[in-house]
C-alpha cells in the first residue's frame, strides 16, 4: 500500500506545470490576467516561435518586465501592444493587423480553399457526365440474365 502511495505522489509531482519564469508580484488580479494575455500575444524575437510567456531568453525577460511596468503605470493593453510594434514591428504580434502587406496571410488560406472546392466540383461534374449507360443488345441481355440465373 505504501509503495502505491509513493508512486501516486511521484506521478503527482511529475504532473506539476513547469513555467519558464517566476510570476512577478501583481498589485491586483486584473493586472495578473491582463499580463498573462499580453505576454501570450507577443512574440519573443530571439526565439521567434515562442511567445514572451514561453521564452526564457534575456530579451523576453526584459520585455515581460517592460509589459509589467507599463501595466502598473496604468497603460491600456492597446498602448502596450503599440509600444512593442513601434519598436519591433508587426512581427512582434502573434495576430498581425489586417493591411495590404498581410492580406495574403489572412485571406490566402480562404482563397486557396475556395479554389480547391471549385476545382473539386468541376472534377466531379465532369466525371458524372462521363458515366454513360452501357449499350447492349437484347440477345446480350438475355445471355447475361441466363448467366446470372446459373442456367447456362
Amino acid at each position, binding site marked *: 500500500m505504501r509503495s502505491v502511495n509513493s508512486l501516486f505522489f511521484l506521478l503527482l509531482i511529475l504532473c506539476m506545470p513547469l513555467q519558464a519564469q517566476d510570476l512577478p508580484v501583481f498589485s491586483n488580479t486584473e493586472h495578473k490576467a491582463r499580463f498573462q494575455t499580453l505576454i501570450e500575444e507577443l512574440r519573443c524575437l530571439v526565439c*521567434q516561435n515562442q511567445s514572451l510567456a514561453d521564452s526564457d531568453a534575456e*530579451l523576453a525577460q526584459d520585455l515581460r518586465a517592460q509589459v509589467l511596468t507599463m501595466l502598473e503605470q496604468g497603460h491600456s493593453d492597446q498602448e502596450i501592444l503599440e509600444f512593442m510594434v513601434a519598436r519591433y514591428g508587426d512581427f512582434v504580434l502573434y495576430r498581425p493587423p489586417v493591411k495590404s502587406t498581410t492580406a495574403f496571410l489572412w485571406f490566402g488560406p480562404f482563397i486557396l480553399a475556395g479554389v480547391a472546392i471549385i476545382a473539386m466540383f468541376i472534377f466531379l461534374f465532369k466525371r458524372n457526365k462521363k458515366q454513360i449507360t452501357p449499350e447492349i443488345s437484347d440477345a446480350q441481355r438475355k445471355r447475361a440474365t441466363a448467366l446470372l440465373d446459373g442456367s447456362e
Partner: protein
Amino acid sequence: MLRYILPLSLFIALIIFLGIGLTRDPRLVPSPLIGKPVPEFALPRLQSADMEFNVNDLKGQVSLLNVWASWCASCRIEHPLLVEVARENILPIYGLNYKDTREDALAWLERFGNPYTASAFDEHGRVAIDLGVYGAPETYIIDRNGIIAYKHIGPISNKDWETKLQPLILSLQEQDS
C-alpha cells in the same frame, strides 16, 4: 494534357516559393524605426559614469551606432572591421554597451581595441528596447539629422561593409555636404 500540366505547374510554383523562402533569413526582422529619428535617450558614458551620452551626440554628422557587449561572441567577429573603420576615420562610431558590466566592457575594449568615439552604458537594456534591439550585435547608420537610415542585424562582414554600409554612408555624406 491539361490534367498533367496543371498539377506540374502548381508543383513548380510551390517549389519556387519554397526556394525563395530558403534564401531569406527569418531572424532578420525589418525594423519599423528606419526613416524615423533616433528615440530620445540619455545614458551615462561607459568610460566616465558622470558624463552623459544622449541623442544630440548623434546629430551633426553621419554616424554609426553599434550595439555591443563583452558577453556577445559575434561582436568579436565584427570588431576588427570596426577598429579598421575607426582608424580610417570614415565616420564617428558610437557604441551602445548592452546589458554589460563596466568592468567587463572596459576590459574587453582594452583587449580588442576601442573603435568607439564614445560608448553609452545601457546596463539594463532599456534604451535598447526603444531602439528595437533583439540581439547584439546590431548596427545603425544615422544621418546628420539623427534619422535612422539603416539597421544591420548580426555581425558586419567585410562583404556587408563593402556592398551595403559603406556605399550608404558615402551617399549620405555627399548629400550632407
